Structure formats: C-alpha cells, structure tokens
C-alpha cells in the first residue's frame, strides 16, 4: 500500500537505470540518513555509541570491502583482519611520524598501504582458485599478524607491543584518543562510511563492477570476451583492501583506542566474513544488515537474562553467545543462503503488489 509503484512512469532508459527507480526507496533511505545523522546522536548514550553505533558502521565498512572481493569479484578471502591490521598500523605510523597530519587524511592514506599489501597477496589469485585461494589468503593472515608482533618499528618499540592511539586534534576538537568524545568520533566514522558507501554503490553499478561480476561468474569466459583478468582481479584486491584498511584504521582510532596484534586474529576475519555472507554476497545493503545482526546479537544476549531476572555468570553468557551465533549462522544459511539483503528484496517485492498475491 505504502510501497505502491503505480503511477511512477519512466520514459527514458536513464531513469530506469537510476539509483532509486522506486520513489519510496529514496524516501526510506532519506529517513534512515536522518536517523543516522540527527536522531541517533541526539538520543544515544555513551554505551550505545561504543557498543552499537560505531561498531556497526566500522564492521559494515570492513564487510563492504570484503564483499567487493568475495561477493563481486568472486575471490574468497580469509585474511580480512590482517588487512585491517595493515590499515591500523599504517595510520598509527603516519600519525606518530607526522603529528601535524590531519587525521582524516591519515586514515584515507593508510588504506593505500593496505591496498598495496592486498595486491601483493592477490597476485597468486591469477593461478590459484577457489578454496586453494582461500587457504592462500590465510598465509597473509598469519604472516601479517606475525609481522605486527615481531617488527618492533611498527609499534614504536613499545614495551607492551601494543599501539596506543594518541590524542589527535582536528579544527580545535579532539577526534581520537582518550580525550575524544564518542559523538565526534561517531560523526567522523559516519561521514567516511557514507562517502565510501556512495563510492562503492556506483563502482559496482558501473563498468568496473560488471567486469568484476563477469570474472566472478566464470573467469575463463570473461577472459574470452576481452576482460583483462589480471587487471580485474588485482583491482578487486586493491579496492577491497583499501576499504578494509580504512575500516581497520577507523576500528582502532575511532573505536578501540588501542590494539595489539592479536586483535587482528583469524576470528576477526571470520566475523567480517559472517557479516558479508549473512548480509548477502554481492550486495551493499547486506553489509549493514549483517553488521547490525552480528553486533547487536551479543548485546541483546548480554542484557536479556538480566532484564528477565535470570542470573547467569558472564562466562556462561559468553559461551552461550558463541553457541547461538554459530546456530544462527547455520539457521540463516538454511532459510536464505543469499543473505538478509535477498530477504529484504523478497519482502519488498511482496510489499509492492500487496494486498494481491501475484
């Protein structure tokens, strides 16, 4: 009823290919943007910022990076966390070597380092395919985390071996470090994530995105119709690692405040992969839906027994958490292997023709 598309005529091909062919979609997105930019920051508590809003944005961005590689270009990667780590350590080095550098510039630049490393580890993808490639990306995962541990220059020869985010000022306000407020950090993350999302949507809609999709669907066939596989796969690795690296820099600088090498372990890689797969491979929206699910679930599970008045020790809750996340992954894969984004698309189709069944 609310979602009726009758009366919205398109007279040009361009209008049909527009970002929002249905007017309600644009209105819905506008509504969500107002929520994110104005309503949440006014209402949210410190806890909500730290436990829900910022993590959702950072994880969604990282998953978006992975989704470009796995969902659009079809190259399965299990080394996402390590590339996030490259971004984070690069940002840390940039900020400590050039203390006057604008933090946004530093965060965006740190992605370049991660992209470089990503291309390097992406080179084998030209010969290695499928699960073999997935295990090959694990080489990046374990090797890079080992590098973070052993190469003392990366963490400025700290005794603790961890990186601490210093206080960083931008235009007179603290934006990173212990003195920064959550609201400023949230706005900074939101701005970067919004811009990145727009870039990603348009990138995947255009020539580049179609090249990636052709590579994903069948790389030999793509090669035969004149797609340069080397270029296609390596750009996918570069763009993906860039976004993941920026997400890693935001992860440490805008959220965690400190990082040790173990933070970028394989379990983080898997968490990002869950978000991308549960959200839906080959979709931008899905990353947000998946991130909301994965971030909100533990928070809900932690508070639920308390509100119900059941006393469970925190260790038990932790274990139950892991169990339920595992079960939910299987559950979502069974009900909709193409992810939450496909679920939303189905609901949307139903809404358009509602109340008629066909």
């Amino acid at each position, binding site marked *: 009823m609310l979602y009726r598309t009758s009366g919205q005529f398109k007279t040009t091909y361009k209008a049909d290919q527009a970002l929002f062919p249905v007017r309600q979609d644009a209105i819905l997105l506008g509504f969500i943007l107002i929520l994110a930019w104005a309503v949440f920051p006014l209402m949210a508590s410190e806890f909500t910022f730290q436990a829900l809003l910022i993590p959702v944005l950072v994880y969604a961005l990282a998953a978006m990076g992975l989704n470009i590689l*796995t969902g659009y270009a079809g190259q*399965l990667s299990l080394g996402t966390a390590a590339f996030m780590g490259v971004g984070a350590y690069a940002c840390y080095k940039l900020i400590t070597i050039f203390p006057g550098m604008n933090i946004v510039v530093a965060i965006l630049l740190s992605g370049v380092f991660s992209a470089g490393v990503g291309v390097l580890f992406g080179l*084998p993808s030209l*010969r*290695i*395919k*499928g*699960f*073999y490639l*997935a*295990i*090959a990306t*694990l*080489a990046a995962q*374990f*090797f890079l*985390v*080992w590098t973070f*541990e*052993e190469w003392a220059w990366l963490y400025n020869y700290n005794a603790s071996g961890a990186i601490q985010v210093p206080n960083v000022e931008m235009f007179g306000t603290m934006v990173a470090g212990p003195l920064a407020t959550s609201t400023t950090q949230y706005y900074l993350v939101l701005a970067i994530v919004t811009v990145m999302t727009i870039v990603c949507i348009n990138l995947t809609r255009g020539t580049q995105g179609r090249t990636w999709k052709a590579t994903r669907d*069948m790389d*030999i*066939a793509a090669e*035969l119709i004149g797609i340069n596989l080397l270029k296609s796969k390596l750009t996918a690795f570069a763009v993906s690692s860039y976004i993941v690296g920026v997400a890693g820099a935001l992860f440490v600088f805008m959220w965690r405040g400190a990082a040790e090498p173990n933070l970028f372990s*394989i379990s983080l890689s*898997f968490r990002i*992969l*869950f978000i991308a*797969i549960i959200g839906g*491979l080959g979709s931008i929206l899905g990353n947000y839906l998946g991130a909301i699910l994965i971030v909100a679930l533990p928070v809900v599970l932690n508070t639920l027994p308390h509100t119900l008045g059941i006393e469970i020790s925190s*260790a*038990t809750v932790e*274990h*139950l*958490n*892991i*169990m*339920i*996340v*595992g*079960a*939910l*992954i*299987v559950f979502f*894969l*069974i009900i909709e*292997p193409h992810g939450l984004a496909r679920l939303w698309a189905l609901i949307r189709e139903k809404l358009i023709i509602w109340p008629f069944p066909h």
Partner: protein
Amino acid sequence: MELLYKIFIAPFQDMAAAPDFLMQVLWEGLVSGVLYALIALGFVLIFRSSRIFNFAQGIMVVFAALTLVGFHAMGIPAYVSVALTLVVMFGLAVGIERVVLRPLVGQPDIILFMATIGITLFLIGSGELIFGGENKRMITEELGIPTGAFEFNPFDGLLLLEQKDVTAVIGAVALVIGLLLFLNKTRMGRAIRALGDDSQAALSVGISQRTVWVMVWFIAGVIALVTGIVWGARAGVSFALEVIAYKALPVLMLGGLESITGAIVGGLMIGMMEKLFEIYWGQPLLGGGTESWFAFVLALLVLLFRPQGLFGEKIIERV
C-alpha cells in the same frame, strides 16, 4: 655476504655439527606432521565424498577429546569412555547431516563452507559450556599408552623418543591402513568413493547420499578422536588445540584437497620442514615464532607452480 652466509651456510654447519640434535628435531617434526596429516585426512575424506570443505574438523578433534575426558571424569572406565565417545561422535554426525547438511544440499560450496564454520562456533560454545574452558589432562595411562622414553645414542649423542609419540605414530599408521582397506575393500567404502567421483551417477545406481554422508562424518569423528587422544597426551586438552586445525589447511593445499596420499605426504613434509625452518633459520634470523606462518607460505609457493597441489586432481576448466 654476512646474511647470505647466515642463510645458506651456517644452518647446515649447525646440522652437521650436531646430527643427534638434528635427528631429534626431525623426529619432533615427524610426530607433529603425523597429527597434521590425521586432521587433513578427516578434511580430505569429507571433501572427496561431498565437496564440503569441513572447517569443523579441527574443533571435532577438541570436542572428541573433551568428551572422552569428560566421560572418564564421571567415573566411567577409560575404554568404556572411548566407546561412549564414539557413540557421541556418531550422534554428532547424524545431527549435522540431518540439521545442517540436508537442507543445504546443492547450495554453492561457499555456503556449505560457512555452515561448517557455524558448526565450529556451535561446538566451541557448547564444548566450553559443558566441559569448561580450562586445560585438562588427557587420560593417557588409563588408556594403556606407555609414557616412558626410548633412549638412543647415535653419533655419540642423545636421541629421546617418547613412547607415547611412538605409539601415536604406530596408531596413525594403523588407522590409515584400516581406512584404506575400508575404502577399497568394503561395500560402504566403495559407495563413499563412488559418490565422490560422480554424485549423480552414484545416486542413480542406488547409493544413499544420506547414509554415506553420515558415515563419512562419523569416520571423520573417529579420526578426530584418535587425533585428540594423541595430541592431548602431548599438550593437554583445551580449545587451544584449535590452532592445529589451521595447520592442517596448508597440508591440504600442499597435498591437494582430494588426495589421501597428499594429506599424508603433505602432513609429514610440513611437520618436519616447519620444525627445521624454525630451529635453524627462524630463531637465529627472524626472532622465532615462524611456525605460525611458515607452512602457509611454503604451500603458497608450491601452489604457484602446481595450482592443484602436489597430488590433487588436475583442474580442467571448460567454458
């Protein structure tokens, strides 16, 4: 020059200077290689018969070992605990097939792969919930595994072979021989191989996919239990064992995802080479800890030349 000397000459001089130590290192590597090979064997078995990349194999090792220790802690005799654990592993195989795999038949490989990661998380969570997260002692003596050590004196040196390691190697060899006999000589074994070769054809001659899948997951569970006992005897039983599951992955890459020979040869190669590299190159030159990534990088390099692994089926692509 100094660096080249340290890389190419000094390690070999060290090896020649202390051959007994070299033999000790190789033996240690061989034993861990046997364990990697066993885990990889579980992977290969499931991959061959169902094209499922079973990420949960490593956690099944921990789960089986924990269940065994848990049963024994309840006062049940050791051998009865083993039997009960086997029953649990069979129940797990039936449960996984019924609840997870059957609804997902025919989905893309990556979806099934993700589902096994889901199973992994579920097993970690439930295992810690039931048995607790702390490190437990494997019931080595109770199972009748000797715990002394054989002492040899080659080259006027000292070589210590722990008896439980020797038992582990013998046990693993017996397991592999048994498995090969089962796969090649029995009706069920042939059915498993047939389903792996061509699932459509196998189904059309009346092989039940469900039975085969349950069987394969159960065999993987048995392998997991053996691995769990052997590794638990060395390092205790806890979820830290999980890391050895990752070690099995480069073994698979090196040996090829479909090849049982590949899993065994790859496992032994990686076990020995990573120990050698760590002792003679990693610790003097790179500050140690290279075992976490050496196997992966080695496998990656091999794969650049043979994309299907050393023993894998040749990948033929058609458009």
